[in-house]
């Protein structure tokens, strides 16, 4: 009995597992598309392909009563602004913590960013709401942006240190020998090397900000609401609005796909963040 020719029950089991998982992932996606592509008010008939297909839901989202653009534009503005602000603060901090990682203080501060990441957003949104109400900052873009920065900042510092850790010490020593000070070494030698890592961290932080619901739902208003909040405005009368909702979710998947596409190749290094 040679090993090669033995029947492999394992392959069979794996095949079944794969089919079950594919059904689990894809069936809801199929229903999402089915709902998005059928006329308002029709109910799906189990698994059968709908008789009438229509783009009216997509039209109402792209260019009709449920128009998506203001919310998407707000999302882009808010996400870019909050992420850039968080990065401006986080990049130097992560660099410093990378150099101070063998010191007690440096390690303690680094670990504290993980603890800060665990601060409940609800505990922040509450005082922000009370303060912003008094300062007339509710339903303003600056208010929303400022309140989103704390979601991203600790995460950025935590993740980015790994990328600075990966910069070879010899490079910095060489710059030091050439007479470059700490700041110049950082700006002209380290930053260019670490740029891909900064970009990866930025994209993941942008995702965190982009999907936020609690902060925007509390502090924004009709004019400043972002995509995740806009999607929930479909809830009131869900029988007639489930089609546009599904269409909006599909349209909104494109920016998500862009961000994930960019972050794919850094996924592993990001996953390793904090291990080393």
């Amino acid at each position, binding site marked *: 009995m040679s*090993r090669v020719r033995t029947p492999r029950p394992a392959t069979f089991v794996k095949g079944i*597992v794969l089919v079950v*998982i594919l059904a689990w*992932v894809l*069936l*809801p996606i199929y*229903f999402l598309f089915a709902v998005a592509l059928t006329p308002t008010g029709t109910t*799906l008939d189990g698994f059968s392909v709908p008789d009438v297909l229509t783009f009216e839901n997509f039209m109402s989202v792209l260019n009709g009563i449920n128009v998506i653009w203001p919310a998407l534009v707000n999302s882009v503005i808010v996400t870019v602004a909050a992420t850039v602000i968080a990065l401006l603060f986080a990049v130097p*901090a992560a*660099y*410093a*913590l990378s*150099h101070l990682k063998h*010191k007690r203080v440096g390690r303690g*501060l680094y670990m504290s960013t993980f*603890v*800060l990441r*665990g*601060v*409940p957003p*609800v*505990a*922040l*949104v*509450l*005082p922000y*709401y009370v*303060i912003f109400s008094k300062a007339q900052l509710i339903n303003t873009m600056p208010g929303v942006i400022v309140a989103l*920065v704390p979601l991203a*900042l*600790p995460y950025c510092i935590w993740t980015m240190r790994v990328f600075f850790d990966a910069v070879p010490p010899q490079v*910095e020593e060489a710059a*030091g020998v050439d007479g470059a*000070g*700490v*700041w110049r070494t950082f700006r002209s030698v380290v930053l260019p090397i670490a740029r891909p890592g900064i970009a990866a961290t930025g994209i993941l932080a942008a995702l965190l900000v*982009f*999907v936020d*619901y*609690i902060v925007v739902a509390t502090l924004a208003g009709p004019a400043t609401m972002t*995509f*995740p909040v806009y*999607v*929930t405005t*479909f809830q009131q009368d*869900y*029988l007639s609005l*489930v089609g546009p*909702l*599904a269409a*909006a*979710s599909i349209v909104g*998947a494109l920016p*998500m*796909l862009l961000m*994930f596409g960019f972050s794919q190749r850094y*996924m592993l290094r*990001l*996953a390793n*963040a904090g291990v080393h």
Partner: protein
Amino acid sequence: MATTSTTGQARRRDRQYYWFLVPSGIAILLLIVVPLGYTLYLSLRHYDLARGLNEFVGLGNYAEIFTGGDPEFLKSLVRTLVYVVLVIAFDFLLGMTQALLLFELKARTAKVLRMIFMLPILIIPTGAAVFWRTTMWAPPNEQFLRTFGLDGIIDPPLGSPNLAFWAILVTVVWAWSPWVFLLLSGGLDNLDRSALEASMVDGASYWQRLRRVILPQMKPIIFVTLSFKAVDSFLSFPFVWVMTQGGPQNSTHLMSTYIYEQAFKFLNYGFGSALAIVMLLISSALSIGAVLYWQRTQDKGAI
């Protein structure tokens, strides 16, 4: 660096690095610490807009929480912990299975499958929540029940105090577990292939390989991925809020949604703040625990 410069110089350099921490320090102080201080201040008051109250009560709100004046909060605390454990367990089982399946396939097939497996996270969480609520769980479509032939046999799950929590759990695992899969799959691709091939030559069975070679090597990445996931689940808000707002009969409240309801629906900011501070303390204690465990294993050289 100490090898090329004298310790004096090194120390001077180190001191300069502390300046790099100042901007972040100020930002964290202003955007996180000061607002939390304000939460603490509010928690010492009866600040209740619905009843028109705004007065100092010291630890009154806390006394009410801990003397059993609010059993729903304690229930939501327990429910949150159960939720964290279940989400992590299901996400890990599903994500790891998906990652292992891909690992043995040809590169091109694996690439296609990875795209398919990650599809659910492209739907924004609130969108997924509304979609599942309306199309998967609720009539007339109730596609989830229909898939198993259960429509008409059991009541719409989101309306039932016994089932709503589980319906939300299924939704969350579907919508957000690909995140865990992507990280684990990345970690798996980075494994030391030679040890793996050696074990295959030895004729080790699949389970043996998994237990002795793959999982031990992946321990650090699993730990990091799951601790991040644990934090996220602990703070989780949108799914429950969008799908049930904590109902029916408070049966799905997590801590976040319960506190949010107290503050923003019942306008009871003082009491909500006290609850938020309690949640903050629990969350910090758990994070610090994870960090200490981390450092201990790091010092031992295990990670």
